[in-house]
């Protein structure tokens, strides 16, 4: 028994085969979108299927799925955007949407050449089979096994919620410049959340593994890793203490802590904020912003990571962008609108949540290259401070560069050594100041291996990845409850 699937999704020219979206029809829609002028127009067709199964109280006893089908039509004039979408792929509905998009401008019609050339793309997430074609019977045991492993890992485990989520998204982008690109994006993860009880106290934690994976990724070893990680992350919290509040040295462990880069510099380097001069980084290109050992990338090409994309959502091929090159601020992340503004090539960062949304510059997988030190040396150099292991969420005010991220698990550092565990602490900093304060990086770059990492911007949510080696930031504001010298 299959589940909701994309019929014939392994076929090229999917939207033509399934919905009769021909080149001639696309040309007609683009002509309507440019019927009042404009610099360019594009069509974004999407057919996405998502399936989730979830376990609660010992049984996989609920399933959810969603089918999304539609086309978004955009007309662009300078930095002005007209946008409309329809869920009916009929010529009449699509023409009506195109004529709404056209209202952003009011000039002479612009001709659209036919003969769209399909882009040849690399594939950063090849699949042996579609996850939607994998029978439900094969997914159920994964989730059940995570539950059983969690309970056998510790007698303190009281409740387990576990789930498997997968999405397959088929897209077709057609532009008035004569480009056409098709992609199939998988996105999936196996997750668990545990509540444990000890001496009348309760703690919870969450963990997941996934990305743009093939189903063959989900081996018994992955099941074990999810279960062990989530249980160990929960149990240690019973011993957690509160760190002191105030400015202290912070060491970030490798992996998910890369969210620090995402908030502290990533958002501020999205070019829309810079062309509007609303980012603190808008005057800093070419300037030294960090020590020479600091190189930060935003990369679409990492195999099977959640932020990897073969092509962005306006037809620019997936690529690697150097944001900070040996301490020098090198490039913003561009979509087509900002690239035209800055007279540079787009960097493939034009992304959108779905056909219901217009494109904006967005991050993909953002990480910092490894340094020379050992992780132990970095911790030792901190003296007294805190060590961050898991981060659950973050936020930034672009204009000031002030950011925060929430530490769900970490440790105290006392006299250069890791000591008591800590939890539930917000850490704050200022992006440019924090970059200058990265004084050491270790040789252990690790990418976050979860698939559930989402980034929100202007109401749109897209999957992203992070990575970081162990780094020392010499001072950040830690939001503990004990004011030094005020309350014991």
């Amino acid at each position: 028994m299959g589940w909701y699937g994309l019929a014939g999704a392994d076929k090229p020219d999917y939207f033509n085969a399934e919905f009769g979206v021909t080149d001639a029809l696309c040309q007609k829609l683009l002509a309507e979108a440019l019927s009042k002028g404009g610099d360019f127009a594009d069509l974004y067709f999407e057919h996405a299927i998502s399936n989730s199964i979830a376990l609660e109280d010992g049984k996989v006893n609920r399933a959810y799925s969603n089918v999304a089908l539609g086309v978004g039509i955009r007309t662009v004039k300078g930095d002005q955007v007209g946008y409309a979408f329809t869920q009916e792929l009929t010529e009449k509905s699509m023409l009506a949407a195109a004529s709404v998009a056209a209202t952003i401008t009011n000039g002479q019609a612009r001709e659209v050449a036919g003969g769209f050339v399909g882009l040849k793309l690399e594939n950063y997430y090849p699949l042996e089979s579609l996850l939607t074609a994998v029978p439900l019977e094969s997914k159920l045991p994964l989730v059940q096994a995570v539950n059983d492993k969690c309970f056998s890992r510790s007698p303190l485990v009281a409740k387990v919620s576990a789930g498997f989520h997968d999405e397959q998204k088929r897209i077709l982008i057609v532009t008035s410049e004569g480009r056409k690109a098709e992609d199939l994006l998988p996105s999936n993860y196996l997750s668990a959340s545990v509540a444990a009880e000890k001496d009348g106290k309760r703690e919870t934690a969450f963990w997941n593994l996934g990305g743009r994976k093939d189903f063959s990724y989900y081996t018994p070893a992955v099941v074990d890793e999810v279960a062990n990680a989530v249980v160990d992350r929960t149990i240690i919290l019973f011993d957690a203490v509160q760190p002191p509040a105030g400015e202290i040295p912070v060491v970030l462990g490798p992996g998910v802590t890369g969210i620090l880069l995402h908030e502290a510099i990533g958002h501020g380097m999205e070019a829309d904020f810079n062309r509007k001069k609303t980012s603190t980084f808008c005057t800093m290109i070419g300037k030294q912003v960090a020590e020479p050992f600091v190189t930060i990338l935003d990369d679409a090409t990492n195999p099977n990571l959640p932020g990897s994309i073969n092509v962005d959502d306006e037809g620019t091929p997936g690529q690697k962008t150097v944001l900070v090159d040996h301490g020098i601020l090198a490039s913003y992340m561009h979509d087509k609108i900002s690239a035209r503004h800055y007279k540079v090539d787009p960097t493939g960062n034009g992304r959108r949540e779905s056909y219901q949304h217009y494109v904006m510059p967005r991050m993909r997988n953002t990480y910092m290259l490894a340094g020379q030190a050992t992780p132990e040396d970095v911790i030792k150099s901190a003296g007294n401070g805190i060590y961050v292991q898991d981060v659950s969420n973050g936020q930034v005010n672009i204009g000031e560069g002030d950011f925060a991220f929430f530490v769900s698990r970490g440790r105290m550092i006392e006299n250069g050594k890791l000591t008591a565990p800590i939890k539930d602490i917000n850490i704050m900093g200022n992006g440019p100041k924090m970059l200058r304060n990265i004084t050491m990086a270790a040789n252990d770059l690790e990418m976050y291996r979860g698939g559930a990492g989402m980034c929100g911007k202007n109401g749109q949510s897209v999957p992203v990845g992070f990575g970081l080696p162990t780094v020392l930031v010499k001072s950040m504001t830690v939001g503990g409850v004990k004011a030094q010298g005020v309350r014991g």
Partner: protein
Amino acid sequence: MNKEMRDLAAWSIETAKSAGADDCRVEIGRSRSVEISYRERKPENIKEASTRGLSIEVFAGGRYSSQSTSDLRKESLQTFISTAVAMTKLLAKDPYRTLPDPKYYLGRPELDLQIVDPTYDQLTPEDRHNMVKAIEDSCLRAGGEKAVSVTALEKDGHGESVTLTSNGFEGYSESTEYGAGADMTVRDENDRRPEGGFGATVVARKAMPRPEEIGAIAAKRALDLLGAKKIKTETLPIIVENRSAPRLLSGLLSAMSGWSIQQKRSFLADKKGQRIAGQRLTLIDDPLLVGGLGSRLYDGDGFPAKKRTMIESGVLNDFYVDWYYSRKLGWEPTTGGPSNLIIPPGKRSVGEIMKDLGRGIFITGFLGGNSNSTTGDSSLGIIGKLFEKGEPVQSVAEMNIAFNHLEFWKSLAEAANDPWLYSSRLIPSLVFTDVVVSGV
């Protein structure tokens, strides 16, 4: 009631039952919305959207699943629904999963909630453009030379939905919503470019503040952020501004759900009937508020809407327990989630309270942070104003407050007289004493 939508919902139930479902709940919705923003005195984005969708919850052989689609063609739906039923049968049984006993559907109030603006269809594209232009204009004027960028925005929408169950529930709801606002970025020292703004959401156009007012308030709020600094870590009274207070309250609400209690993730699970907050905290959930953004006649289970006092003078009275978790817990159900939340306002203005307190921090926004519903521990970044001798003297940023909800709400000293009117959280500014505010 929209007949076409109702007929499709009834057909979907029949289709699911013929495919082998014992019971089901179907909701069909559709909406239309328009969004216009201006920057540099020209339209930046114009967006129009029409959406429709069907979701179906299937109960078959003691098993459960929920599916949704935007493809409402009958041929597609036929396959969609029969696949849903077949797939449901592969899951494990869940004895708690049923439609509610129909006796719980009885007693739906009959009143006009006034959540549809009868003038909605009269709104023209020109009206929209004129409104956004006026907001932008007043914001730019009030911002003066400090303004780097202003984005002004208007959006409006109209939606309707039909819900039908195989055991006799039938509901229809329709509503309108208007939003308007502006964000302004201002030039500050040291490459800092703070952004501040103002936005309002209302059910009826006539309740929207004037565009000139929206723009001017947005500019003032942005200029208020200039010169922000971190001050030293200190224990101080805080006033949390009305529009930001819901963020604090969400830490309590997340621990008040049947799910979090049954799944052992609630620090309030055993606190019913006990004092969890200061005398000043009364929290009312009122789905029947006329013209409210969260108003409704029935909830997700089809239970009739009812006003409830969730917390009364600091004592926890009730939880949000839907049908499913009521069965798991062996409790009577209440309602699955909040509608309009009201904390009764006090008598004094924020200005008067500041004068009385002398020195403290007026929190106007949060940055990052989180709240743990299992333990009640919370840590939030803050921005706002330090006030001394009753007057705001210094903007603050990059600072933080951390607390446990069970302690924190006991330090609630006062509610101001300024309930926020532009969301479903009608909460006034709240005053707390002795909070550790961490900075340098």
